[in-house]
């Protein structure tokens, strides 16, 4: 039996008729056209599908759309909250924090979570915090550099 799901994505509320087995990542990508959220491994490992669910970073391939009923979701498309780039996106741009860009939306959402939890996170804490996000290209150096640059330690 289908369920009606009301969800606020990037500030806009909408209603969807979904099968219980529909995953949040598919609701976002297929029903709402928000393809910035990537599906990499589809087995909860790589973090490329990471979005904010009620303000917390989660892997949207491991959340049912029905579990997100009544929740607020922020995807990479809505992170900046308007035109222009979010400071974390700008930091990735400035520090060449991506190559192919596939992992980047998930990396950026997780990076925002790391600094939300601890604005002055150290480089080590940032590396540790990114353990659920896999990048096949960069070797992580410039990703970590980007997040460090976006954190409050960078201005010390």
């Amino acid at each position, binding site marked *: 039996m289908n369920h009606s799901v009301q969800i606020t994505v990037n500030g806009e509320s909408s209603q969807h008729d979904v099968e*219980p087995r529909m995953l949040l990542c598919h609701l976002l990508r297929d029903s709402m056209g928000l393809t910035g959220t990537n599906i990499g491994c589809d087995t909860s*490992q790589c973090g490329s599908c990471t979005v904010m*669910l009620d303000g917390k*970073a989660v892997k949207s391939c491991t959340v049912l759309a029905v*579990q997100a009923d009544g929740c607020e979701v922020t995807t990479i498309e809505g992170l900046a909250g308007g035109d222009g780039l979010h400071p974390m996106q700008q930091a990735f741009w400035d520090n060449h924090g991506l190559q192919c860009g596939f992992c980047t939306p998930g990396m950026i959402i*997780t990076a925002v979570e790391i600094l939300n939890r601890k604005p002055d996170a150290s480089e080590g804490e940032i590396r540790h915090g990114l353990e659920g*996000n896999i990048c096949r290209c960069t070797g992580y150096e410039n990703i970590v550099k980007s997040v460090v640059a976006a954190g409050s330690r960078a201005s010390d």
Partner: protein
Amino acid sequence: MFPASFDYHSASSVAEAIEMLQKLPDAQLVAGGHSLIPAMKLRAAQPANVVDIARIPGLDGIERDGDDLVIGALATHAAVADSAAVQGACPGLAEAAAAIGDIQVRNRGTIGGSLAHADPGADYPATMLAFGAEITAVGPGGERTVAAADFFVDLFQTVLDEADVITSVRIPAAAGTAYLKHPHPASSYAVVGAAARIAVSGGEVTACALGIGGVAGKAVLADAAASALIGGAASDERIAAASARIGEALDEPLGDLYASGAFRVHLAGVYGKRALQIAATRAAG
């Protein structure tokens, strides 16, 4: 990957969840979904009905109750790891929660789900044994409380009946606790996890327990090692001598491509010793 089709039901109370589990054929609870959904996507689990308990109010509390910590079944790993009450009352438990998976997993996964799932590579079971936890569940026959030592039966098996819902976990506060793990480099589950609890009085160890996860089908207590430490100083020499006996509790180690049974037993000795050392330092205050 989609799970096989199922019907979804959101319970608004524990009583309603129990009723649904009894009434609906082939029904399974979902809390954080971070063990169940991956299994459903792989079609290793194909429940016909899924009962969501995540919206039941009041099941996610973390409170100090006298000499105990009481943690609601729906408390996420992140909430336990970040809780000042847990860090203060039982630092080893906060360490175990922080060692689970990654930030995203910790934001969803719950303590009740982890205990009910009883994965041999899970981090909480060893701490529950070593720290003397009690697990409370409610079922059709009412509420019951089970000591952790009686709760885990085997690989993915507990004493819970099909319509039981874990509601909370009670853990005695203990400053002298520590948890250390050797994470699998890809999955992050514990290849070996060691949870140590030590109490010291007048320079002597008066109580000690050591739980080892990841090695056998279920977490076990290394009783011979723990008793060997009681009744003398928590010196490095005595901890080393006691740790040499950890393997006695691990006669049926599991092995896989990453770590053979023998290697896991070896790691249990290494991590068990280090966890005891940290717990001893904390117990000494």
